[in-house]
């Protein structure tokens, strides 16, 4: 199973990023092997949440671990059958471990506003 941790960098030591749509990187972690594959998230001016959901879906992740997720991104992730866990803090490693330990809560609805991360 693959999970996606939103990140400010490309390594385990990078800070987990609180935004889903506008996080600079998605660290795709293979839960079994703990190998990581950094994917550059490249939000444009418009529709960052939808685009990010598309990227996560295309990578075949089952779970997204992030700080908060907006309505468009949530709808896209839900349609793809991807579970969303929110409240990630610290490094990617810490966020991943918190998820594995069951310390993060699962979002059943959007937790952020649209356009939170960027300008219109």
């Amino acid at each position: 199973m693959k999970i996606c941790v939103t990140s400010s960098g490309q390594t385990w030591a990078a800070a987990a990023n609180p935004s889903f749509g506008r996080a600079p990187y998605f660290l795709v972690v293979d839960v079994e092997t703990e190998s990581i594959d950094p994917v550059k998230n490249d939000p444009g001016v418009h529709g960052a949440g939808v685009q990010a959901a598309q990227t996560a879906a295309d990578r075949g992740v089952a779970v997204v671990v992030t700080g908060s997720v907006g309505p468009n991104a949530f709808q896209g992730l839900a349609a793809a059958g991807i579970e969303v866990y929110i409240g990630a803090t610290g490094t990617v490693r810490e966020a991943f471990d918190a998820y594995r330990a069951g310390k993060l809560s699962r979002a059943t609805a959007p937790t952020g506003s649209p356009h939170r991360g960027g300008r219109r």
Partner: protein
Amino acid sequence: MKLAVASGKGGTGKTLVAVNLAVVLSSEWETTLIDCDVEAPNAHLFLRPTLVERDVVSKRVPRIDEARCTECGACAEACEFHALAFVGGRALIFEELCHGCGRCGLVCPNDAIRETDHPLGEIERGQAGAIAFAHGRLRIGESMASPIIGELKRSAPESEWVVLDAPPGTACPVISALHDVDAVLLVTEPTPFGLHDLRAAVGVARELDLPAGVVINRDGFRDNDVERYCAEEGLPVLLRIPFDRRIAEAGADVRLLIDVRPEWKEPFAGLAASVKGLVR
């Protein structure tokens, strides 16, 4: 003469300038006032127009004909605005992100995309004394003001003077209001915030290659930084409206400044003359 009254910062006095100027102009010229602030129109409060025409403004959004769709994902890939996603084996449409450009329909190899109207808001036209009046209103929950502003400008009557009360800010709705005008008045106030947003608004005017003049409202309220900036940039200050409780009271009573204090008719007539000087 098509003149936009813009500001950058909200609440600096765009409507104060636009409505008083329009009324003064209308005593001598055919005048149209278009309130382009479709997110919060307020010129009608001062001009009290009789509105006789009403149109709904819509954008065209895609619908997917499931029978024809082969789930190729070309539409989602083509969308510049990410209004389409292709996840879980089907296309998802985010109507509020759609700009109605029609590209998804053009790239669909199976002719599976139909378009339907998605209403964005309404425009209304009428008469306020001698002034031809038009304004629009963006529906709650919608974010795309530009198509409404575009339709307002297209449908408003031609006249010798068209005064456009622009939305605040420097984003898409402002560009829609300012593009194709002859000149722009930038209304500001002598505060750090007023100066900051004036700089942004001047940037827009220059980008659009528009002759610009400045109106300083609440003059004397705080500092001279705005005056200094205008001098440095070679921006003419065409009118100064003092920081005066009686002017604020006229606004609070939703009355025209030139009605409450008729001595202001002449400065607004002078402003109109100065605007003409800008475009010469």
